[in-house]
């Protein structure tokens, strides 16, 4: 065990970092590397891997101090999949060599990650996936198709799950890999969406070679490894405090105050209901955050995504309607490939259309309701007929 690192010690180390690498005169990437090496990247990670084995809750103090000094941040929006999903999975299941190789460039943002999980035939029923990985000497050869892959066009690496034994039931014949996106067998094609832009991709995998040293966890245990990834995907909330009117309710409330000519009695009633619900969702998130800090994590996290998805859709829908004539217009349909995942940017029409994805991405609301019902409330699962059947014998 390393010596306990407390808040005062973290503040001291943060000031040492700032003194040795003044943000005003230090290259952005150099600063981020120094921060990682000082253990101030994610303080709850082990020493030598960007952390100090400190309580996770102390990260906020470090972040606040660095923000106050105008230090560069690693833009978690751009590298969100790497930070939120690949990193905890590599930390949990990776070999020492994998951790040393991948975590630092991931956190610094030198290497962007994407997630090759969903397939055209395996979305909510993710374990039904059909992408195959066949052993060939020291390598695995991967063939298949993935979809809804954000950042694939910018990514250097991907976390990938593929079927390694079709004779086993679907959850058991899956393995988990780190895939080199620059392999010539990886073909990333933009998938144009409802908003007109191509934030996501289709990814075609043809004879992609992955060395066995890039496998995460044992052969056939990929579903278990993927659970870690998916749980981290859903627990993305909780770190930071949201100010009042901090989410989608902000722009529509400002429009209401600044443009009295748009107001109607009907929209007033709906706005107030949604304002109250947004404020309650903010408080629920704050309570969850306080539980985490107090070391009593509750199951509320799985519910927050449900609440925000519904609220975002209703608020953005109201906003388009409130705008009347202007709501008939749309900013720009030109197909672009955004660098960042952007839920709240651009105009009301964009927000309305983009928020439709909030109840699908990262687990549909229907699947999350099942998770709450079964894991939080303890309700019985629906009977299922796919558990003991070999994957190859399932109907598709």
């Amino acid at each position, binding site marked *: 065990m390393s010596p306990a690192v407390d808040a005062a010690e973290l503040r001291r180390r943060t000031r040492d970092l700032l003194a040795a690498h003044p943000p005003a005169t230090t290259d952005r990437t150099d600063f981020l590397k120094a921060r990682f090496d000082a253990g101030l990247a994610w303080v709850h990670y082990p020493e030598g891997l960007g952390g100090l084995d400190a309580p996770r809750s102390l990260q906020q103090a470090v972040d606040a101090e660095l923000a106050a000094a105008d230090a560069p941040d690693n833009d978690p929006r751009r590298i969100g999949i790497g930070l939120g999903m690949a990193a905890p999975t590599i930390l949990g299941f990776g070999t020492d060599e994998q951790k040393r190789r991948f975590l630092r460039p991931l956190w610094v943002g030198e290497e962007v990650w994407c997630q090759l999980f969903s397939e055209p035939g395996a979305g909510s029923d993710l374990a039904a996936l059909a992408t195959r990985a066949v052993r060939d000497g020291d390598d695995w050869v991967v063939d298949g198709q993935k979809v809804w892959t954000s950042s694939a066009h910018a990514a250097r690496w991907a976390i990938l799950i593929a079927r390694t034994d079709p004779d086993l039931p679907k959850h058991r014949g899956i393995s988990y890999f780190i895939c080199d996106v620059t392999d010539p067998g990886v073909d990333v094609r933009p998938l144009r969406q409802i908003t007109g832009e191509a934030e996501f991709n289709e990814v075609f995998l043809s004879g992609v070679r992955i060395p066995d040293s890039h496998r995460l966890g044992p052969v056939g245990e990929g579903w278990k490894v993927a659970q870690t990834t998916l749980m981290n995907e859903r627990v993305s909330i909780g770190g930071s405090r949201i100010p009042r009117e901090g989410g989608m309710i902000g722009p529509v409330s400002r429009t209401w105050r600044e443009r009295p000519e748009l107001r109607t009695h009907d929209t007033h009633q709906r706005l107030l209901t949604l304002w109250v619900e947004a404020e309650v969702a903010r408080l629920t998130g704050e309570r969850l955050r306080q539980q985490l800090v107090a070391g009593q994590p509750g199951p509320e996290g799985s*519910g927050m995504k449900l*609440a925000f998805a519904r609220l975002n859709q209703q608020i953005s829908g109201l906003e388009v309607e409130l705008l009347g004539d202007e709501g008939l217009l749309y900013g720009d349909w030109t197909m672009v490939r955004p660098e960042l995942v952007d839920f709240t940017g651009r105009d009301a029409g964009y927000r309305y259309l983009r928020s439709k994805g909030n109840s699908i991405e990262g687990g549909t609301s229907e699947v999350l309701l099942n998770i709450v019902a079964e894991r939080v409330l303890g309700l019985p699962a629906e009977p299922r007929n796919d558990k003991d059947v070999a994957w190859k014998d399932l109907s598709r």
Partner: protein
Amino acid sequence: MTARTEPQPQPATPDLLYSQDEEDLRSAVRALLADRAAAPTVIAATEADTPYDPRLWEALATGIGAAGLLVPEKLGGQGASHREAAVVLEELGRSVAPAPYLTSSVVATETLLALAGDGGPAAALLGELASGARTAVLAVPFATPPADPAAALATLDGTVRGIADAAVADVLLVPTAEGLYAVEATAPGAAVEPLVPLDLTRPLATLTLSVATGTLLAAPEASATAVERGLLAGAGLLASEQLGIAEWCLTETVRYTRERHQFNRPVGSFQALKHRMAQLWLEVVSARAAARNAADALATGSPDAPLAVAVAQAYCSGVAVHAAEECVQLHGGIGMTWEHPAHLYLKRAKADSIAYGSAGTHREAVAELVELPAP
């Protein structure tokens, strides 16, 4: 109204968790209610002439000391806060126990606290309420919202309809144009007529005063401020009672649907039902955050309290009603019977949704407080 410098002042971060002391208090209240206010007891009491069990009240008010939580020790109370009183109300909601806690120990007490600064009759009465020896109610209709307490009589002469717990109160706090009076329930010229309430666990009555006499507690302006303070605390902590109602309804519905079999499987395994209960769970955890926020804002005297209370009431009223309605529906036929307690919760939840202002009234208060004006 206080001056506002910007449309959205950010509140101080509230403490939304429960302390160990609060959890201990909860355990004590829950054990007492399990012992003295089990569902068959409560159902039987609703058909009796005296719905309130004096032994339950004595144990709650005196034994646990719950009646005096809001009252400073120097005035004979426990010197605790709205956070603790909220926990008591969660448990009272969870058991729909008939007890004049909200009306006497919160609303009447809080009204008197605004007037007890320099001793006098208000302080003396507070001591009696804190000990649980006597109970009082604010003589305004139960539906009166905090922001609009303009239900005062001109003098101690006239009628006030639909006062909660008036039938069991020793003292009536009557706001009039001349100020706030304390009128003994047995005083000449005071008549309390019970009404038939929707919520059988919280009696309503009409007070008729015919040139009655009382003790003047406050001049008109101080009276209005005190009444508003009492109603604000009542509305804010009512959210915790609503949370308790919703929690019981969800817990019981989950328990029942896990056991009840139809079509050769537990009905709780059907996705159509699971999603409804999961949605309810999300509403309950959200209601908890809203109710705790209101209790904490009242306890800390935060300038955010009026908004925190309005938000909690606008949200929690609907959650309690939704939970109780789902409870009846998902219990099937048994949910419609008199002997199953689901109806007690539905009646309490629906009555609570009107008490101290409806959700719509509180949304109007939100509109005012955060400057989202009507067209």
